[in-house]
């Protein structure tokens, strides 16, 4: 007789951190973000079905004047779409507070000891208006934050790429060099040519199509990779603790400024 023990799939927490500041109203950024997330949800369900060993749980944290959980309960991915409410823009950019709120839920407990590395996706179109450094320190002090797959999507060219890069972590071999805005982004490459280290730099979304594409990439390809844990030799892990799949080819040629929408 098999004992009465709780065997469980390993939880995989997928958390969006969405900039809902007033600037997101401009150029249809917020509707595009809502649309991109909504469209990605059915495909996330498919990823979940293809990886039944991982229990994918979704949360959404919005930050404007303050950080608030838009979807605060870890929700099985197949239950997100029926209860999805669109995000609304307005206010400042309390990114530091968002990092602190995120840190609080990445502690163990409530995080499960045997969880898979979480996937954290930060989406922003501007610069923080609060003390982001302190918030980031608080966040990165949590072991689960350090273990997480951290991705950042910069909406438009006003996004603070330095902060987004700090959230991701310094690129291996970058030597701490500061990168100027618009240079060295994962979106800044020839169409169809994969980045050398996908996801290790902020993804530059300059229009609704590229935003949707990166959201889809993060919520399906990356999620799928994170759902299939592979041990890694400690100290030899290359870029992240989950081998990230190649980025989708960009539609727009970033060198063509006439096609930049945001």
């Amino acid at each position, binding site marked *: 007789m098999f004992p009465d023990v709780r065997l469980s799939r390993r939880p995989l927490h997928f958390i969006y951190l969405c900039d809902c500041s007033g600037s997101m109203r401009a150029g249809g950024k917020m509707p595009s973000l809502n649309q991109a997330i909504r469209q990605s949800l059915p495909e996330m369900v498919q990823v979940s079905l293809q990886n039944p060993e991982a229990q994918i749980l979704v949360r959404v944290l919005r930050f404007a004047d303050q950080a608030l959980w838009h979807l605060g309960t870890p929700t099985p991915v197949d239950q997100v779409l029926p209860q999805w409410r669109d995000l609304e823009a307005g206010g400042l950019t309390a990114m530091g507070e968002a990092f602190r709120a995120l840190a609080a839920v990445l502690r163990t407990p409530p995080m499960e000891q045997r969880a898979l590395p979480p996937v954290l996706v930060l989406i922003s179109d501007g610069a923080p208006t609060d003390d982001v450094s302190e918030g980031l320190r608080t966040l990165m002090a949590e072991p689960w934050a350090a273990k997480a797959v951290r991705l950042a999507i910069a909406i438009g060219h006003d996004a603070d790429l330095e902060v987004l890069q700090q959230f991701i972590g310094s690129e291996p071999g970058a030597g701490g060099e500061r990168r100027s805005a618009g240079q060295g982004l994962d979106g800044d490459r020839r169409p169809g040519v994969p980045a050398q280290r996908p996801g290790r730099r902020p993804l530059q979304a300059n229009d609704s199509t590229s935003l949707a594409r990166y959201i889809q990439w993060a919520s399906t390809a990356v999620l799928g990779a994170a759902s299939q844990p592979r*041990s890694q030799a400690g100290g030899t892990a290359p870029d992240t*603790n989950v081998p990230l799949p190649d980025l989708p080819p960009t539609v727009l040629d970033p060198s063509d400024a006439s096609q930049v929408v945001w």
Partner: protein
Amino acid sequence: MKRSGWLPPSCESRTGASHQRRGAPCQDSSGLWCFEDGSGEPIQVLVVSDGHGGSRYDRSAVGSLLACRVALEAMQRELAGMCLSQHPNPQEWQRWLAEVLPVRLLQRWRREVLRHAGSHPRSDGAPPSTLPYGATLGVLLLTPRWWGCTGLGDWDLVRIADDGTGELLNEEPDLSGGGEATFSLCMEGAERHFAARSALVAIPAEQAPFRLLLSSDGIRKSCGSDADFLTLARHLGDLAAAGSGDAAAASTAGRHLTEALDHISLQGSGDDVSVATARWGRLDASAEGHGLQPRGPLIVQPGQEPAPPPLAADAARQRPQGPMALASAHRHAAAGSGDQRRRHGSIPWLRACLAALALAAAGAAGAALFGMGLFTRRLSAPGGASPELLGVLKQQVDTLCRAQPPDPGPGEASTTAAGAATPGASSGAASKSLPAASDDRGGAASATLQASLLSAITDTLNQRRSSFRDLRRGAIRPEAFLARPAQDPTGALIAWSALQSSAARPALVPALQLCPELREALRQQWQRAHAPVAPGAVDQTGAPDSPNR
């Protein structure tokens, strides 16, 4: 009054549910070996290894298998000739487990891995590296007066007391390198990480029964909590213990254990799962007369071909290990998955056939596909040679050329730092120092190694002198060996060497790379079989130019 001791151990590995779904191989391995030290005291060694998987570690299934094999062979090689009771100081053994043995293991594992990498070059031209073979390793060493553990990686060790209470004794501390980061054999300086996982526990005279359960991370990560894990560990221990009776009970218990492991993976992490179980308890007649007899190594990795007893050359020079070492492997399809396992089971009546089977055992060792041979089988055969023949021949060459020379004797060992710390030894194998760590050898030592390897291969081939002679005389045709190479790999290799220079049979004579020692040993055998051989009539294998004339 019955005395207490270690009861027959068990081990099992199963392909994870997610691996099965994706068609990925099992990258877990487990193994055990029961043998005696120089004074006849029983020793058990249990191992579990977990290959990392993923694209960076695409040969980790081989790395895991080699880790188990190397660990078992190293322990047996170093302890079988000693008398453990003459080294009662636990601190010495603690240090041996933490510092000395890891150096040995890593040297041998790296050597085997690089040998495999060299013989199986990557399609992208990348230089041979241990990285793709990354794997963890957990080792349990059980003696009558103490038990110890060592290793590195994310394995777990649980102790189950007689009342069923479980305790997690040993686990990998959390690493900051990433969510799935673990210490690995492929890391530079991996030896350093064994110390933190090494422990030695004395067994008091009135020790109550208990069990030890060594498991790969797939089991613990399938459980909702550590309490669930400990409950599960007790259950798995019960299943393993249920198989200590007769053959029918063992079969039933084995099936229940594999079903439980499959269930755990399916309902839990989906990862490969391995468990090795040791039991301390009252020794009854069956245990003393059956399960604790010296036995050959057992290594389990689902999906692979049967593993051999010790390497052919090793078997030829090691002292007899009892019937278990000679028991032929049998395998069966595991319930529900089609996995193949192998067991070197106990067949008591074989004791009477010990001498008669010795030669067969050496041949069977080559017949089995192991480690590198698992990959050589997949090679297409050039020149029309049968893939089976090519695979077997390569495996046999590899087996013979991989044979390791005996470890340094007490005199050599005493020159090392470890040797200096060992207790004073008098003479003889039973009193030699604790095995030393140093495996470094200079040029002279390298020559000694080569000579030892040549000697080991010669020992093996000497048992086949009649084959050389009969082939030379034409009493046996080479095709007789080559038609069924798996049945007699050594014979196939001898027949191959006989046909080397025969241009009329290209389809039967695939190209093989021999190590110099094997080439020389074959040359000597052919010289012996054929009295005067002109120097120009001997090809690279030493075969006469026309053996069938």
